[in-house]
């Protein structure tokens, strides 16, 4: 397998300046790419080719995250997300979640493998003390352990489901997040949502929460020369539906338009804080086609 640095992550980078744009409409969502592309797993479909090797996008320091959260609160942010990489590899993740929860509802995206009983206790305490909701999104790509582990690594299904159950037992309502990498409709016509819901109920989770994400031709699934959007494609299309019209991502190197493209030069909108990034975002990348076609958002909604 090639190292993450050698992957064709920069598809379309040279065209960013001539691409159609998404107007900046409002600041709703702050993403904090807290661990960059540093992860303890190496999933086959990872959108930013995260892994345990030297990350091509570095983690950010806690103080950088705190500064961004302070600025975001002042600017009227609606919700905050922590992602990576694996956020629970960051030594300050729990105090940072507590800090964020004093400003806004906060979500952390995790593979779940580092959530043991002690971490689950701390998350439950944070959630209970906060005025705003804490959401924990745990990635599971298939309800079948073998199929899941083919994508995410050996033994990962059991660890992720252990995290889901630990959180559930403490009154948190984790959102199980799957990508369509393992999409298959059952013989009885059940789609992915139904299959995941039924599975979670079978594990004793009375209030199953599921989010399904499309697969992006990016990171480990990148293809050189993928299609990109043109002005012609966007005639009659409501660009306000694109998440980059209201989200910004703080990651190593600056502020980026969306969490899918964090770390890529073409998506960087500012190196001087959030407010300076409140301008049109170029729809230059082949991944922008996926948002355009599916209407997807990385947020919980």
């Amino acid at each position: 397998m090639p190292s993450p640095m050698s992957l064709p992550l920069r598809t379309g980078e040279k065209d960013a300046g001539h691409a159609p744009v998404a107007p900046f409409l409002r600041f709703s969502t702050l993403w904090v790419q807290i661990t960059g592309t540093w992860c303890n797993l190496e999933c086959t479909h990872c959108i930013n080719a995260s892994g345990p090797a030297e990350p091509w996008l570095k983690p950010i320091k806690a103080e950088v995250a705190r500064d961004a959260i302070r600025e975001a609160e002042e600017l009227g942010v609606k919700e905050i997300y922590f992602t990576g990489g694996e956020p629970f590899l960051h030594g300050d993740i729990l105090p940072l979640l507590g800090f964020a929860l004093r400003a806004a509802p906060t979500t952390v995206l995790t593979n779940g493998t580092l959530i043991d009983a002690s971490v689950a206790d701390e998350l439950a305490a944070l959630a209970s003390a906060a005025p705003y909701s804490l959401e924990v999104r745990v990635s599971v790509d298939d309800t079948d352990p073998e199929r899941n582990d083919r994508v995410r690594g050996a033994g990962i299904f059991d660890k992720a489901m252990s995290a889901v159950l630990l959180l559930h037992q403490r009154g948190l309502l984790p959102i199980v997040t799957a990508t369509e990498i393992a999409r298959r409709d059952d013989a009885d016509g059940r789609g992915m949502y139904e299959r995941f819901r039924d599975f979670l109920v079978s594990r004793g989770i009375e209030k199953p929460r599921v989010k399904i994400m499309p697969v992006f031709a990016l990171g480990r699934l990148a293809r050189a020369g993928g299609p990109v959007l043109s002005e012609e494609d966007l005639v009659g299309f409501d660009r306000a539906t694109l998440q980059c019209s209201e989200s910004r991502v703080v990651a190593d190197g600056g502020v980026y338009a969306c969490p899918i493209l964090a770390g890529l030069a073409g998506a960087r909108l500012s190196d001087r804080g959030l407010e300076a990034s409140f301008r049109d975002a170029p729809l230059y990348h082949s991944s922008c086609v996926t948002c355009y076609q599916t209407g997807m958002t990385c947020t919980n909604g």
Partner: protein
Amino acid sequence: MHERLAEYRRIAVFGGVYNNALALLSTLEDARRRDVEAVFCLGDMGGVGPHPDRVFPLLKEHGVLAIQGNYDESLAQGRTDCGCGYTDPRDNHFARLSYEYTFANTSTENKQWLGALPRHRRLLLGPHRLLMCHGSPRVINEFLWESATPSGLLRRLARDADADVLLCTHTGIKWHRALDTGQHAVNVGVIGRPENDGSTNVWYTILTSRPDLSVEFVPVHYDFETLAREMDQEGLPPEFSETVRTGWWTTCLENLPSKERSRGKF
């Protein structure tokens, strides 16, 4: 030149009628007994209930001052979707069933009436400048849940709207927050369905200038058994009438934040 705003001291405000004419009538009678000067509705006349056209004569006869919700906008524009803003397929499945029923059973005249409603209203309640909206001042179908709406956002919305008090609905669960700036945000709740707490009553809000702002949430008890029976007779999904009979939401749960979701049964 500044628009001259209507001035009041005591008003009643509700949202989300959802075709529930029985709760609407009970709400209007209750508000009258409490000596309010005017009654306002923040939109979404249509929804999960039966016989959509029954709510319009009540709104008109009682002089309710309404604004447009996303449901009203969709009906008026002949859209195929209620525009509630759901993303989960199960939520969208049930939203489609109620919308198709409501669309088919709302007269053209009433759709036109909905289309003529304003999207916002401004007024004075004593010294307080109020802005009424459906979802949020900026987006008609934005969900402002109590546990998912930061005070920093509310301060900015109020500042941008040049208002001391923001009034909204859309989520179906009431709340009130006094901000450290002296501004207020109030989600006035809905009268179309109970608010996922196991009680069958619905809620509206009375605001009074004393001259400090007083916000009172008022429970409304109505003939929910008749409503549920009518829903069943109209062939609406049993999940809808179950909510009316039990007070627990059975559908459109997926976008609830964890704090609100954890308080419900499902």
